[in-house]
């Protein structure tokens, strides 16, 4: 595929593919196509039965769909993972240090490392939480870092997700399905388990509690409700961890403390893992027109009587305009060069960058600085002339809202499609947890795959699927 690196087969012309994964190549060659399809359908039937569905915004019949699952795993070796995890740890440490600084002393601005206006006039910077002191100075307890790959050792951070990253249930359910449907692959490879994620998440929640909560903090997961596209994940995590799943109406704030209403009376809540955007957390402090939210929650949070995971205001760290400064941010707080590089980024707010972008639209990916889910973006190489010209007008009207990046030759992984097994582009989102004694990772993540031939957009809302991500305990197959 335009010379893209295939994570199993290597570069085009590499012959038999990467030797360390030879058993997988052989498995793919010998497995009858009908059997692969049968297993894939069995996995999808399982997901449908579990109710792992999502709704697509902007579609007339808001059908509950399942995200397509692909039966062919992607594989990372122990060495590759070691480097990735060091890079992730460094980056997420810096994200938390940045958040604590930007809502506190703002040293990074005083030292001239990022423009003051870019950080503070950013709509994701929330003056409402200035002066808040979350326990252990942790703001982004759960980060999803989106990585892409262009070669054997070339991983890039495409995007940081420091608000309420979703998708971890797919990491866990995809593994369940693979263990059940393709047990032989787990004989071939020593795959590191991911099922400790939920325990680690529970521990992260408990350890985020205010000191006043004592030894056994009450933790809940706050969902906007069953119509939310990620509701399955909210209920899955609450069930697995064994904490209450609550909606805003189940909580009330009294005397600057948060209480959960139950049939036997009210219970004080110490930690809220919220899957609701900042805007809808508390109508008294954020959007007054919001009918959602828990009135007084921010007062309880500011008073230090409840912890919120992730803390309100973390969006300023994953904004795409801030993203372009992440290498400087990492260097500033960690004192060393970033292990994982950024994708080169042109900030269209800067006249020269805008000119470059306008001159090269057909080669670039242009994104909204505050967009997500693959909406409002242009992928130059796969867009028509008319689409490009339409986007050009939008970009000229509001350049400050956009950044541009080169179209990378994203790596591919063999994927089962209608024509058989064919390479499809992938990305990778590991979930990085932060506890008082440091960053915690399970060896795994969410691999998203663009099912359309040549497509680079992996978002589920844009027709992407998922596949399991094997992280090996060693450098290749057991049998090689």
């Amino acid at each position, binding site marked *: 595929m335009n010379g893209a690196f295939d994570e199993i087969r290597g570069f085009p012309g590499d012959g038999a593919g990467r030797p360390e994964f030879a058993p997988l190549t052989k498995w793919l060659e010998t497995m009858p196509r009908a059997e692969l399809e049968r297993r894939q359908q069995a996995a999808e039937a399982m997901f449908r039965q579990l109710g792992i569905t999502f709704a697509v915004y902007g579609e007339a019949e808001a059908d509950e769909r399942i995200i397509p699952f692909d039966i062919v795993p992607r594989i990372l070796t122990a060495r590759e993972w070691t480097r990735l995890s060091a890079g992730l740890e460094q980056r997420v440490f810096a994200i938390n240090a940045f958040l604590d600084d930007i809502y506190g002393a*703002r040293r990074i*601005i005083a030292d001239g490392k990022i423009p*003051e*206006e870019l950080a*503070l*006039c950013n*709509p994701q*910077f*929330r*003056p*409402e*939480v*200035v*002066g*808040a002191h979350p326990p252990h100075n942790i703001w982004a307890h759960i980060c999803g870092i989106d990585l892409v790959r262009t070669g054997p050792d070339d991983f890039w951070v495409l995007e940081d997700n420091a608000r309420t990253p979703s998708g971890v249930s797919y990491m866990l359910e995809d593994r369940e399905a693979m263990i059940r449907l393709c047990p032989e692959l787990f004989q071939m490879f020593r795959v590191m388990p991911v099922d400790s994620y939920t325990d680690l998440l529970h521990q992260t929640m408990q350890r985020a509690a205010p000191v006043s909560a004592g030894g056994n903090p009450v933790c809940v997961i706050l969902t906007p409700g069953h119509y939310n596209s990620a509701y399955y994940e909210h209920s899955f995590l609450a069930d697995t961890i064994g904490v209450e799943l609550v909606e805003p109406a189940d909580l*009330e*704030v*009294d*005397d*600057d403390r948060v209480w959960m209403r139950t049939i036997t009376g009210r219970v004080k809540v110490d930690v809220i893992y919220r899957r609701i955007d900042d805007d809808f957390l508390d*109508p*008294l*402090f954020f959007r*007054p027109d919001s009918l959602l939210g828990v*009135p*007084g929650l921010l*007062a309880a949070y*500011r*008073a230090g009587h409840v912890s919120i995971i992730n803390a309100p205001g973390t969006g300023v760290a994953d904004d795409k305009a801030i993203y372009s400064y992440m290498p400087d941010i990492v260097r500033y707080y960690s004192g060393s060069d970033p292990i994982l590089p950024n994708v080169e980024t042109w900030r269209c707010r800067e006249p020269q960058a805008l000119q470059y972008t306008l001159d090269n639209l057909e080669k670039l990916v242009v994104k909204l600085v505050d967009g997500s889910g693959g909406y409002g973006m242009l992928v130059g190489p796969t867009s028509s002339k008319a689409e490009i010209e339409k986007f050009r007008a939008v970009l000229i009207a509001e350049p400050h809202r956009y950044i541009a990046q080169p179209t990378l030759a994203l790596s591919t992984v063999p994927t089962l499609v209608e024509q058989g097994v064919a390479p499809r582009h992938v990305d990778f989102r590991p979930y990085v947890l932060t506890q008082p004694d440091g960053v915690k990772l399970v060896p795994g993540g969410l691999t998203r795959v663009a099912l359309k031939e040549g497509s680079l957009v992996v978002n589920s809302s844009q027709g992407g699927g998922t596949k399991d991500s094997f992280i090996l305990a060693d450098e290749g197959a057991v049998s090689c």
Partner: protein
Amino acid sequence: MRISIDHRTRYTFSEPQARVVQLLRMTPQDDGAQSVIDWSIDVDCDARLRRGTDGYGNISTMLYVDGPVDHVEIVVRGEAVTYAHAGPLTGTVETLPPVLFLRQTGLTRPDEAIRNFVSGVCGAVASPQRRAETLNIALFERLGLRAGRSPKARTAAEAFAQGEASTRDAAQVMIAAARAAGLPARFVSGHCLDGPNVRNHRSAHCWVEVHVEDLGWFGFDPSMGRQPGETYVRVAIGLDASDSTPLSGTRMGGGIEELDVAVHVEAGQSQ
């Protein structure tokens, strides 16, 4: 000057409410131009009051009322001594740098009419301080003042287009204009002994502060066409009226609410 304030807010509900939660930003703080002598917040029903600060450094008070309750009356009373001053504000609590206050909000975002007004009025004025002064006077002359409280959620652009403004509207138009002119500006809520609402007792006062580089924050009152002096008691600041509003609340229960506000600002010691 000694100024006494008695600010009563009464909510009456057509049906009993299970709970009422309110956020008050009604407590002033000492600064270079005022000393708060005595201040109290009282509620006429079973309630818990919790004092804190918000992100802008304002003193906030959370009010938690148990139901069933069919009315809540909040009485804020206090006295401050104010001083005549010239030049920029001193001694105010500053948690955020001025650049934040360049940020336009949904309520302040200027439209073309405001932008044109700004370039027409002060396009040729180089000094930032003069620009702010010029805008303040021009808006005072342009906007007809409407007494009393403004309808909720009117944006600066809407108020400017109608040419008639409450004190809140005037302040937001001034903020929109100042920011459009490149000057950080913020909303101030407080009290004024000789403000436009002082005779009808229907509302407190609000005005604007504009930041001038290397000098500091200066007060401007576009509803009076002047700069605040010793007849003013400064209470809370924010990006716009919504995040510095004296009182916002939520209730759990049906029916409608009726709001009655009485503000008495007087010189000298309260009775």
